[in-house]
């Protein structure tokens, strides 16, 4: 398997990472090298094997339904790139 240049650009778009044509070409060659390594997996028969998501069999814990967090809005917004009146500012989405 190998990725084409348009596929590299499409994946970069999905990942929301701007990529120039020159970067895409270099990335294509690196990614294809990595996928060659990854392809070794396909030689193994994994029929009937249960996928393993975690090292420990853990289940989500339940907790009592009560407020545990305090309001730290101002503290957290102090490190935001752009805020106004307690709101995060981004370019206009709706006209």
């Amino acid at each position, binding site marked *: 398997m190998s*990725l084409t240049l348009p*596929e*590299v650009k499409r*994946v*970069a*778009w*999905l*990942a*929301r*990472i*701007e*990529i120039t044509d020159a970067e895409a070409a270099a*990335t294509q060659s*690196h*990614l294809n*090298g*990595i*996928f*060659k*390594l*990854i*392809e*070794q*997996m*396909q030689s*193994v028969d*994994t029929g009937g*094997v*249960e*996928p*393993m*998501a*975690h*090292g*420990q069999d*853990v289940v*989500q*814990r339940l*907790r009592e339904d009560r407020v545990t967090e305090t309001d*730290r809005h101002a*503290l*957290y917004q*102090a*490190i*935001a*790139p*752009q805020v106004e009146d307690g709101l*995060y500012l*981004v*370019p206009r*989405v709706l006209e």
Partner: protein
Amino acid sequence: MFNSTLKQLSGLLARKQLSSVELTQSCLDRIARLDPGLNAFLTIDAERSLVQARAADARIAAGRAQALTGIPVAHKDIFCAAGWRTTCGSKMLANFVSPYDAHVVEQLDAAGAVILGKTNMDEFAMGSSSETCFFGPVKNPWDTSRVPGGSSGGSAAAVAARMAPAAIGTDTGGSIRQPAAFTGICGLKPTYGLVSRYGMIAFASSLDQGGPMAKSAEDLALMLNVMAGFDARDSTSLERPAEDYTRALEAPDHARTLAGLRIGVPKEYFGDGVNGDVAAAVEAALVQFEKLGAQRIGVSLPNSGLSVPAYYVIAPAEASSNLSRFDGVRYGYRAPEYGDLADMYAKSRAQGFGAEVKRRILIGTYVLSHGYYDAYYLKAQKIRRLIAQDFVEAFKQCDLIMGPTAPSVAFGLGSMSSDPVQMYLNDIYTTAANLAGLPAMSIPCGFGEGGMPVGLHLTGDYFAEARMLQAAHQYQLATDWHLRQPAGVE
């Protein structure tokens, strides 16, 4: 003093022969002298450290000291610490001052330890050489033309150069153990779930685990006593009774202190992949363990060769999801110029992330994308099960598994950075423990090519940390590899 163990330093502090302020200041002085040549630290805040040191001295004077009270500890810059710049080695977080403490940071603070500074690392912990950092590479104190390993290379170099008595790191695929091996120190990755991931900037959540880095197994045990513990804010934190990891260090008082210990040696770890100098040092260590009474048993981990391919699907997949939070909206880097919202995301991420981080996000995005999920992500998770099963079988025959931590000693700066695949293959012996969730550690066991340190890798069954630390401690009572220090940093 700089070669003292944590126990010795703790004794000096308790007997008032040394104050935490004096100890912290002398570490800071040593950092000021040595670190310009090593680049192990990203942030030093002497005033902040000394405030903690003064509080520790007051606590010692009041008779409320614990084992780590007053001990300066270097923190990998992946642990959020309130009021400290926490960059994760990235331009994305170059100006991020954390508003809160990681659980591990809280635990160390409650024990009275002092934050000595934040250490350099591969960007977002993605790397095996500490070269992908936005703030420049870390250099190996044993030979500054070589890498210290990664991603916790700054923490490793800080301990190796005796700038910090101990450090904390994180290990997703070997990021504590491989740099420990490359710099001649000890490092432990605990059983997955033992140390809370809260406030530890996420790379691959099902693999990430924080752990201690120090000069000896005994010091690791003292550190782990403080770092481990249940935390409800990490959904995978394990609820289990607290353990004293130092409890088993001292063996019964006879010559064969490790009698009864069965050491499994996987045949797959001694194939063509390992360099001769590393294999020879590891072999000598195994002979030493036999002298201490341990029994060597040949075992097999037939799927171990698949751990790197499976890891480089699972880790990037989880990373692509975790790193989607860096979008230039709530914190972190935002591009100075952009058009619409999508353009702001794409430019902020393109400019804020380095090449290796972008590569891994792209791999992760691809393997999780429509039509490829089963062929890559699900397949890798099935192989993960096979790898974990190999260990279940092996641990029916042995108590610990030993082998090399890395295939070679530390390599030259820049020698692998152009070829990601070659770099990834450095993780051949370490990623399996993360995939299975098992505890594993590296201890110094000799020297190889160029007089560089070699690490011995120990893997234990789930929650076998105390057993592993005991074996390592007994080995260190009989040998002095862990006491050697680099010549250039006297």
